[in-house]
């Protein structure tokens, strides 16, 4: 009888097993450990207090992103943010860990710089104390977020104890309609299946629409895996992946590149691999998406109407909708388009790469941000910033009335005092519309970069398809 095929998860997982801990739990080797300013120095100090050393500093890399200011000149980083930055510098230096510091090429949001520097590679196992580490799966890596205790374990041992997850394949099939992006694809999936559908699974995204996506779009898809409930999301590497990786600062070269390439080509799931769960999404039916509530699953097409709790039978679900509408200050049954906005945020590990900024600039070019709207563009990394400036995108934004800022996490999670004014409404290209995520009482609507730019220009949630040229 034919052997059952192996999934990409199986292949990457098995390669990293040092020893079996129990039936379905293994001690795994960590190939790349990324540290940031919010938890990095805490972990290093924790290790020091236990009299332990960093096991493999050459596989550990750090950058400040969460707590630094994105204001021009980094003005306004809080006292505590500066302390964290200082302690990240001291502790990484003491442990021999490479730090990509403020204003240097290499600095940026961890999930932007890992791939950009060629640190994140196909087939590698990558962890970071941040739930959006799943982003790196866009290259065909096994990447996931960990907590502070696990972070200390990785620093001390370069390994992690982990239970093998179940496998799920999500196929996106068809040709993406005009004005619809990777962000809309993944939000549509979350709207369709819910925010807990991926819990316990490693998700592989496949299908013709994933094949057609540029690598940066695949990062956006994988980034929102955690909003689908899944710690891990991945896309099989292909020629686009190899082209993306080749020539990057830490990518292998010459003969080593050829060896790596040969290994990477073995990674995609076998044709006869069986997944524990399969979902198929027809992308031709997807419209630009926008969230209306307090969970990423509270999402509709931009031409749709806000749900009406009165039409929901289940009392718990009805109460949840009422809570969401109340927090968001929205009227049941009303069209979402036309809802006035106060803030627009273009940035975050979801949507701050060059292609994201290009898509937003395309909408902004020659237009003006509506009066009363504050619109920020926060590039994902120093390199993205420099590349965008080189092609004049900063000018496009500032001439339209957007603020052009320094790279970091900024208003995605508001760890740095950069918050939406309480009670005000924001359209954001980030990943979470949770209560208070962008600041106390902030009302967040998630959307793609093009849709966010359209909202800035219109001064209201707008259908980008009516604004494209």
């Amino acid at each position, binding site marked *: 009888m034919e052997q059952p095929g192996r999934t990409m998860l199986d292949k990457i997982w098995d390669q990293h097993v040092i020893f079996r801990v*129990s039936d379905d739990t293994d*001690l795994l080797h960590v190939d790349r450990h990324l540290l940031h300013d919010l938890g990095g120095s805490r972990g290093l100090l924790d290790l020091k207090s236990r009299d332990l050393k960093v096991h493999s500093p050459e596989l550990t890399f750090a950058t400040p992103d969460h*707590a630094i200011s994105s204001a021009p000149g980094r003005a306004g980083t809080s006292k505590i943010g500066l302390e964290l930055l200082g302690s990240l510098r001291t502790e990484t230096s003491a442990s021999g860990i490479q730090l990509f510091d403020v204003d240097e090429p290499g600095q940026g949001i961890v999930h932007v710089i890992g791939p950009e520097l060629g640190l994140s590679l196909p*087939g590698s196992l990558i962890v970071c104390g941040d*739930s959006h580490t799943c982003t790196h799966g866009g290259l065909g890596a096994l990447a996931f977020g960990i907590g502070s205790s696990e972070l200390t374990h990785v620093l001390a041992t370069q390994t992690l104890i982990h239970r093998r997850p179940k496998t799920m394949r999500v196929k996106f099939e068809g040709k993406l309609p005009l004005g619809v992006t990777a962000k809309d694809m993944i939000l549509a999936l979350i709207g369709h299946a819910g925010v807990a559908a991926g819990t316990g699974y490693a998700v592989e995204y496949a299908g013709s629409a994933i094949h057609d996506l540029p690598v940066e779009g695949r990062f956006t898809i994988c980034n929102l895996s955690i909003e689908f*409930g899944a710690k891990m999301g991945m896309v099989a590497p292909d020629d686009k992946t190899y082209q993306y990786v080749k020539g990057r600062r830490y990518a292998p070269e010459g003969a080593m590149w050829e060896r790596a390439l040969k290994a990477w080509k073995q990674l995609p799931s076998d044709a006869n691999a069986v997944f524990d769960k399969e979902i198929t999404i027809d992308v031709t039916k997807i419209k630009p998406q926008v969230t209306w509530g307090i969970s990423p699953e509270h999402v509709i097409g931009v031409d749709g109407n806000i749900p009406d709790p009165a039409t929901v039978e289940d009392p718990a679900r009805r109460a949840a909708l009422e809570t969401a509408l109340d927090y968001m200050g929205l009227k049941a049954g009303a069209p979402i388009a036309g809802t006035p906005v106060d803030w627009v945020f273009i940035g975050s590990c979801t949507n701050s790469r060059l292609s994201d900024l290009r898509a937003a600039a395309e909408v902004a070019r020659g237009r003006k941000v509506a009066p009363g709207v504050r619109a920020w563009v926060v590039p994902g990394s120093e390199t993205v910033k420099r590349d965008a400036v080189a092609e004049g995108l900063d000018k496009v934004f500032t001439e339209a009335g957007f603020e052009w800022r320094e790279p970091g996490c900024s208003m995605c999670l508001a760890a740095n005092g950069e918050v939406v004014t309480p009670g005000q409404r924001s359209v954001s290209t980030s990943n979470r519309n949770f209560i208070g995520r962008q600041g106390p009482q902030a009302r967040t609507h998630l959307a793609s970069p093009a849709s966010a730019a359209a909202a800035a220009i219109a001064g209201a949630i707008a259908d980008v398809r009516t604004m494209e040229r």
Partner: protein
Amino acid sequence: MPKPFTKLSAIAAPIMRTNIDTDVIIRIERLVGNGIRGTLGKWAFGSLRYLPDGSENPEFILNREPYREAEILVTGPNFGCGSSREGAVWALQERGIRAVIGSGFGDIFFANCFQNGILPIIVDKEIVDGLAAEVELTQGAGRIGIDLEAQTITSPIGKTYRFEIDPRRRDGLLEGLDEVAQTLRRDDEIRTFQAADAAQRPWIHFTGKQV
């Protein structure tokens, strides 16, 4: 190193809303800084517990007697989804919570609980809803019993339910194991793996600072 968890009989507070995320459990600004441990208990569920003027919200369950003394949370589906911040678990722990019972949890939150001696129990939604209803019926006076070794929950009116748990996780909690120390005992195997792997996948191990 986590405190061992064996048995518990305690006041339980039902927090039944679906998808309570870790941002709601602890706001990010409370987690900025290296000296935050020990300061988080009063900020657990801050946006639900306090009104905008900073006073306690009398409606919120943990502000009411006897739930102020709760050591168990009975939770709605997908509790602890979202961010990986272990501060969410620290905040619950510093607030006095020792166990959470729900039909499902965010994956990273679930793992973080074990690291801090908090027992997350997954049972069917009907059981969770039943426990919450019994707690409410007794106006919080009815305690929930948990026996980790026997893997049972006893409801306020004395119904017993068995729960499943990864044996490794169970033993770790029962003994309060230090995973770092345990793993380091086998460091020679880690180093042997690294040496063999470096020959097979040199692009992973030679990151430009060694050669």
